[in-house]
């Protein structure tokens, strides 16, 4: 069961702001700040008015890479929302699983600049604890006071989905009472921007998934964290249940490092249906991976046809990346949160910036305007570079 939510993203610094933006179909994609002369990327989904000092003390910040900051903020909101903050008994057996595509890149790059550009001979003594890939899990556990297992999972753009599936499995197997799982990514560093530039998949306009005139993905940053616990555990403490995590499917394409493979992603969707004991005709909504790249959008649409057959025409499908941007690993967690809130509130977020659909993209993509529609069962797709696919099925709790 999902009993707590936390999010910080370009679409707002907390869950209420995030959900308002999703409902309004408001895109957070804006000109990149600060603009960098030798980088072609000119638009991005960046945190609005984020001041780390208003969340953390100076001493705390010496140990917090930006990706750790975002993870701590989202996880704190999630446990407050679930009503378990300061509950020592519960937090003792709570796991922290943070997904991240690029982990502590800010610290890595600052260190490289000092050594290789400024030719300094020394680096700050806290560089290792601040910059280690597991830093976000350590920092979340220390800030929240959780004492169960804590670790980071990295599977590029599916990191959040993999982390949430791992958390749910740990709860289901009885390893822990509660898992706080999700993902965090802060990719706006000079080196990463240059690297994304080199890959030539980033739009300089905006993110228009499934549209004829789409021009690529738009990078975002943020974190999304969920509180997961069993139905019994939630019932015993009288917790509000947003939705049930009904099942999941994970596959690897084992084909190409960047091109998605229809067999691998169709299989992941089918596995999620089987794991949740659902028939394909029971799905109402799919929160698509929907990056806004030609390679993804066409293959994902074909895969949905392959899995759902005639029911594909009855599905509603949207890509919320058109609003919160592609926050890499964190995007998958933000999308699972958007899907959870869609089920809980009976409002389905749209695909923003929608113009005219690509001829090869022929589903109902909920153009521009959220749809007030009660949905019982939904899916969230996450397909990462390397052909790492993770699909989660969510069910309305009743």
């Amino acid at each position, binding site marked *: 069961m999902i009993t707590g939510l936390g999010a910080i993203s370009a679409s707002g610094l907390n869950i209420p702001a995030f959900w308002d933006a999703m409902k309004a179909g408001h895109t957070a994609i804006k000109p990149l700040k600060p603009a960098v002369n030798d980088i072609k990327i000119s638009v991005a989904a960046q945190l609005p008015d984020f001041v780390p000092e208003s969340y953390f003390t100076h001493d705390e910040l010496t140990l917090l890479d930006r990706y750790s900051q975002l993870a701590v903020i989202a996880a704190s909101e999630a446990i407050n929302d679930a009503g378990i903050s300061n509950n020592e008994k519960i937090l003792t057996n709570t796991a922290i699983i943070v997904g991240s595509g690029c982990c502590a890149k800010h610290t890595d790059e600052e260190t490289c600049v000092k050594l290789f550009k400024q030719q300094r001979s*020394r680096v*700050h*003594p806290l560089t290792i*604890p601040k910059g280690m890939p597991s830093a976000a899990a350590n920092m979340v556990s220390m800030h929240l006071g959780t004492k169960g297992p804590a670790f980071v999972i990295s599977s590029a753009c599916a990191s959040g989905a993999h982390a949430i599936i791992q958390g749910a499995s740990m709860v289901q197997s009885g390893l822990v009472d509660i898992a706080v799982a999700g993902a965090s990514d802060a990719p706006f560093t000079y080196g990463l921007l240059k690297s994304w530039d080199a890959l030539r998949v980033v739009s300089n306009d905006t993110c228009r998934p499934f549209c004829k005139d789409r021009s690529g993905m738009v990078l975002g940053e943020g974190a999304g964290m969920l509180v997961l616990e069993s139905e019994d555990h939630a019932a015993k403490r009288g917790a509000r249940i947003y939705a049930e995590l009904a099942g999941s499917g994970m596959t690897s394409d084992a084909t190409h490092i960047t091109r998605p493979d229809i067999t691998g992603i169709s299989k992941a969707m089918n596995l999620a249906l089987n794991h949740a004991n659902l028939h394909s005709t029971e799905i109402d909504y799919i929160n698509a991976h929907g990056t806004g790249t030609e390679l993804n959008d066409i293959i994902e649409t074909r895969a949905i046809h392959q899995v759902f057959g005639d029911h594909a025409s009855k599905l509603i499908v949207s890509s919320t990346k058109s609003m919160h941007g592609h926050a890499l690993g964190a995007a998958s967690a933000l999308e699972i949160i958007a899907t959870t809130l869609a089920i809980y509130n009976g409002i389905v977020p749209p695909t923003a910036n929608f113009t005219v659909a690509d001829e090869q993209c022929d589903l109902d993509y909920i153009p521009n305007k959220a749809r007030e529609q009660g949905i019982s069962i939904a899916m969230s797709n996450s397909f990462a570079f390397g052909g790492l696919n993770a699909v989660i099925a969510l069910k309305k709790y009743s």
Partner: protein
Amino acid sequence: MILEKVAEIIVETVHCNAEDIKAETELESLGIDSLGAITLIFELEEAFGIEIPNEVIPSIKTVNDIIEKLEVAGQ
């Protein structure tokens, strides 16, 4: 003179009160743990342009110990 400069760096690094810093003050009483001490020594090395050898670090317990090591390292 050197005490004043050291005290200034201690305040900037660990955010304690300047008036709590005397030559005989123990670093632990300022809330400086082992990781804090390494950070402080790094900042002092940067400010004074010297290097304090690793082997003398365990013997640094007070503000005065810092000043002594800085003087030795600066010679």
